[in-house]
């Protein structure tokens, strides 16, 4: 489980590559190829060979450093390590782009549409509840208007009865 970081793996691979390359290009092989020069100048051959190996290794390591810096590769690889670590419990193959952008975009937009739908649902329910309260208030108000109208009707009828009595009374009172 203790996975090696990708950066370390990369360095190890490059080291191994260089070791094997140097092992392949051994001094023996080098001196065999440059046999006559080697016979003439063995010490010089050794020094040139050593310089050759040192320079080759230095150049290759320098190149790797450059590539790491250029693409910020270390940070990118470390972040990939982290992503892989987070997903280590998964076994089944993960989603991959389908190649149809419209299709892949649906899932990306879904959370926002779902949120919009829930917000709208909430607003509609809230407004419906408020409107129910308003409707109840209106029904109560209508009832009250009705009662007031009945009260006024009663008062009006009483008043009219009175008026009728007044006229009768007057008629009686006015009799000579």
């Amino acid at each position: 489980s203790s996975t090696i970081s990708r950066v370390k793996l990369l360095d190890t691979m490059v080291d191994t590559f260089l070791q094997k390359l140097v092992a392949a290009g051994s001094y023996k092989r080098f001196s065999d190829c440059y046999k006559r020069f080697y016979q003439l100048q063995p010490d010089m051959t050794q020094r040139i060979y050593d310089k050759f190996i040192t320079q080759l290794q230095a150049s290759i390591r320098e190149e790797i450093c450059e590539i790491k810096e250029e693409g910020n590769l270390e940070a990118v690889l470390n972040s990939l390590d982290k992503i892989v670590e987070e997903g280590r419990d998964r076994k089944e193959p993960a989603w991959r782009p389908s190649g149809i952008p419209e299709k892949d975009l649906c899932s990306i937009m879904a959370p926002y549409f779902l949120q919009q739908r829930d917000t709208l649902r909430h607003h509609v329910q809230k407004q419906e509840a408020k409107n129910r309260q308003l409707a109840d208030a209106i029904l109560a108000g209508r009832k009250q208007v009705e009662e007031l109208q009945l009260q006024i009707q009663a008062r009006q009828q009483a008043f009219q009865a009175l008026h009728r009595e007044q006229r009768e009374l007057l008629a009686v009172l006015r009799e000579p």
Partner: protein
Amino acid sequence: MSVDPMTYEAQFFGFTPQTCMLRIYIAFQDYLFEVMQAVEQVILKKLDGIPGCEISPVQIRKCTEKFLCFMKGRFDNLFGKMEELFLQLILRIPPHILLPEDKCQESHPCSEEEIQLLQQEIEQLQEKYKTELRTREALLAELEEQKIVQAKLRQTLTLFDELENVGRDRGTNDFREGLVFLVQNSRKLQNIRDNVERESKKLKIS
């Protein structure tokens, strides 16, 4: 053999792993050639310094080619192995791994049909919300009307109360009595007036 374009890796790295390896290969190979060239230059320079040397530059070139050919072969072989490992272990997104920007593909998997249904539902909800808002306007308007009507009706009732109060101010406790009281008073006034008229006639006669 179908080439794996490693598009998911390219999405993450911003370059294709194969290109990255090609870049490294070319750089390494250039160094190998450069260093070999430097080796040859140094040897030729050394030979120049040796008087009566029989080794010709052509011979040295042949030696260089021989050594380089061998090195290049080993280099390609080793690099091929390293590339394979790079593409397998370093520059690869394991199949079970999902990149962060694609998280919602698995947390909210949604087909085109589902998203259309969702958008339809949103439109319906928007219409419903607008309807509710219009309903609210109408209800509020009626509430305002009711207030005005109720105020008018209460005004009318107050009028009746005031009428009654008028009677009460005159010591009668309800309107009917008030009215009788009024009529009796007016009757008394009539009598008083008749009396006054009679008296004034008598005075005129005398």
